[in-house]
């Protein structure tokens, strides 16, 4: 079976990613991409009383790109946006029992995508 230096948890999230898809009329949307490696991630959030009630993602990229996206949605779901915005790249990697060194920078953008989505949510809220 696959062994490219990924933990069991990474492979598990790669094979069974949580919260895949799109939310129609989201309260926040974030998209990030890395031109060097080519990964692109997008995250949709639905927020009620500043709490993330639903979250979905789509990712173009390698195994760790998909697994980190899945993990970040798990970590953020149900959290207050001010809590969720504190989730770091390191948190995501740790929750997945680590990532190979070369994947740490290029395929660990999921937290960034989440932060973008929360930023978008806050911007929309201000405009209201």
């Amino acid at each position: 079976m696959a062994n490219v230096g990924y933990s069991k948890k990474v492979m598990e999230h790669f094979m069974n990613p949580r919260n895949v898809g799109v939310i129609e009329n989201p309260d926040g949307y974030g998209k990030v991409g890395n031109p060097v490696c080519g990964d692109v991630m997008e995250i949709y959030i639905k927020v009620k009383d500043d709490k993330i009630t639903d979250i979905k993602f789509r990712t173009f990229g390698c195994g760790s790109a998909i697994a980190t996206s899945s993990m970040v949605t798990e970590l953020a779901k149900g959290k207050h946006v001010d809590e969720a915005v504190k989730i770091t790249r390191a948190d995501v990697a740790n929750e997945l029992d680590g990532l190979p060194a070369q994947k740490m920078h290029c395929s660990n953008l999921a937290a960034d995508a989440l932060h973008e989505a929360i930023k978008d949510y806050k911007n929309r809220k201000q405009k209201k």
Partner: protein
Amino acid sequence: MPEQPCGSNGVQMSRIYLDNASSMPVDFRVFEFAKPYLMASHGNPSSLHSVGLEAKQAVEESRRKIAEFIHAENENTIIFTGSATEANNLAVKGTALRNIIQGKAIIASAIEHMSVINPMKEMQKNGFSFTSLSVDSTGVVDLKKLENILTKNTVLTSIMYANNEIGTIEPISEISKIVHEKGKYLHVDAVAAAGRIPIDVQKDGIDLLTLSSNDLYGPQGAGALYVKPGVKIQSVLLGGGQERGLRSGTENVFSIVGMGEAARIAQQEMKQESSRLLPIRDKLIKEILKIDQSYLTGHPSQRLPHHASFRFSYIEGESILLNMDMYDIQVSTGSACSSKTLEPSHVLLAIGLKHEEAHGSMVITLGRSTSMNDVELVSKATNETVQRLRKLSPMSQEWRK
């Protein structure tokens, strides 16, 4: 002879291993043949006593087999090395440095292995001018351009017999004629081609040729460089003067003996094996290309008989590789995400693919364990893999708009 462990090459039966360009199992007959040289006949070929002589004779027998395999003039043309990478380094640096008085221009095709391209780039630091020769969208080198960039100062031109990532076979005889009109030596990396299509260094007009043991179902740890009689070359690895002084270091007798036997078997069985694999390969290509927005990379017909390479839009190759592995099917990819440098394959960029196109590549190389029964499983697994990853991908909808 003991029973084979399982499968025709010791490979687990349920597994469908389609990454033979990366590593092949050692042929059971090869292992049996070379095994004594790990223990009972452990001599150093340089030792003058009977144990050393035994090892030396085995190395020389292997040399003869390799020479026959590529139709070389005689066995003295074969220099054993520790790997094909080493043979490529010896070919590039050894001829460039030895012939420096004649000129300081060197050429390699844009799709050469890094063990040719990187030594050439390093020679630039020593004042050589290195020109990369472009290829067309199918991976065939641009012969007109080759004619134009060759000068009498071109001491070495290196073009591979066939490419390992896209399977394209280069017109070596034609290339040889062009190179020898103006330039000096033609080096051919035949690692991917050897054992798949016949090679005749004399008919093809080749001055230096690289072979790898493992790519012939021989043990890892041996490679060889054919050096045509009269070619001026110097060593890049100095020491006790083994291999006519061109490659010092005690010979890896087990691997060298195995390589010779592997070459002998490959020569004997190549025609039959290639015609067995060809219809399997073609069926696989036909089935996989039924997938929406899937494309064959490399040349459609002028390609190695065991080689099929593809790209799929909107998805990434490492994910393809991992997902296929879940079906216990092993493939390869030229995706940036799977490489140490995080750069997409230089071969895929050289045939004109964009970065995001090169990302979605999958390479399949068939071997002796592959059968027609595998086609259905592999094409089904590929289709399911592509569909699953596309569902995850934000690109598919965006690009379709």
